């Protein structure tokens, strides 16, 4: 059975939403995500464009400004919930890892 959309977030979705915790222009996210992750995560322009559209449709972000074709967005309450849900899931995973391997054995 397919999972409900955005019940869990991929890494790219997570960082896009994280960038939008403060108002941000859509196009700037492409540079902010690699900067935030030390280049580990890169978001493609098509993927970013589609995800912004889908997040907006799902009410997870809202458009705040439009200067020509540059639109800015910010996270909504629903988006914050999704982001914090994902954070808790990642924390739980980290907790489980430590429970198995202990604090001293860091990857």
């Amino acid at each position: 059975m397919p999972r409900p959309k955005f019940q869990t977030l991929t890494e790219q979705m997570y960082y896009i939403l994280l960038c939008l915790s403060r108002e941000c222009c859509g196009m700037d996210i492409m540079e902010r995500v690699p900067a935030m992750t030390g280049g580990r995560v890169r978001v493609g322009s098509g993927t970013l464009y589609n995800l912004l559209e889908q997040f907006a449709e799902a009410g997870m972000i809202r458009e705040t400004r439009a200067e020509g074709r540059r639109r800015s967005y910010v996270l909504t309450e629903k988006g914050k919930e999704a982001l914090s849900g994902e954070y808790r899931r990642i924390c739980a995973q980290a907790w489980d890892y430590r429970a198995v391997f202990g604090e001293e054995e860091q990857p």
Partner: protein
Amino acid sequence: MKNRKWDFIPFSYYDRTSMERHLEKRAAQGWLLERMSNLGWYYKRTEPRRLHFTVTYYLRASQFDAGPTEEQREFHDFCLQSGWKLAASSGQMQVFYNEEADPVPIDTEPALELERIGKMMRRVLPFQFFLLVIGFWMGGSWLWSLTHSPIDLLSSAYNLATGAIWLMLFLWCAADLIRYFTWRHRAKKAAPLGEFVPTKGCHKLMLAMMAVTALALVYIFAADRKPGLRLTLVLMLAGYALMFLAVNGVKNFLKRQKASRSLNRGVTLTVDVVLAFVLMGGIMGGLLWGLRTGRISTMEELIEPSLSVEDLTGVEDDRYITRRQTDSTFLITRRSFHQDSSFDQRQAGENPVYLDYTIVDVHLPFLYNWCVEELLHDRDDWTAEMEDGEEVRLYTYMAADPEPWGAEQVWQRWWAVEDTPTGEWLLCWSGRIVELEPGFDLTQAQMTLAAEKLAP
């Protein structure tokens, strides 16, 4: 030196990987894509470069748009921000290139790409399934005819050629659909792992289909000797080409005039439907006119009957009418003759004898037995229900003495119900089969005379 180049490779619409590889190869040769249309892809000369190409689909775009919408431009801006320049677009298909050595791909989330291609293909698939069913029906009928009535099929250039086209259409549709659904299945499994699966369409099979279509048309031109039909075929093809150009012309004109998408779509489709009806009407009208005025004929006037009632009976009657029909290909030539009295004569109660015969010349030996079998069994489905409810065959062929005919093999048709012979014969010589159905019993002398006239 040429600065522009054109090519036409019928890639499957979803087959982004093959398109990207092709465009990268062209760029390495010094040709950069600058425009796409229904007639092919157009390139401009550049320095040979190692470029990366991405073919993606912008679902809200339409081939009827006067230009990119603001939203579409925003999408292009996003791509440009990461170094992807728009090379060309056509409808939903958008082609970008990037000069960097290791650019961030436009799509980095496989699930999103899968969803987008799935939505795009939802519009294409019904049409492709429709073609599959038509191809199966027509190609299947062609194969059935090939195995059950090869003479009908292989003696007609038109049947032979069009059947091959339908069969290729079926093969392409089936192969392309299988390829697409296989890719989709694999891509669905790979998406949760963050992996992209390359696409692989069937453009080579499509090229083969186009080659078969071109060869089939050339073959009809070369093989069909019916007066006027070549001209008819040329006019039909010209009509289709004109219709294609007119519809595209209207669409592009309205685009240049900045007409809205809905207006362009409405006008273009209306022109398409109207022209299709005009073309069909023109073809039908032209054919009827050609047949009526004798400009198109079925070659009836051009073939002389080998045998006539007068030859056999020695009685001359100029009121006889001889109907003739011929079909010929490099495989089989079939000529049929039916000599009968006129309708007025029959109305007046005069019933002179008639003569029916069909001469089948088989040009390739391996087809010979196949054709004999067809003729031996061509009335197997003529049945009658007996008093006890049993269904019995009306006719059967029995081997007869070939000596009086000077033939290699001879069969005589029998009334299976009454177990009595009819006056109908199947005569076989090397390369020629004759189905002879005189309306009277032949004497020995008449058989000898008929054999002389009908033998190869």
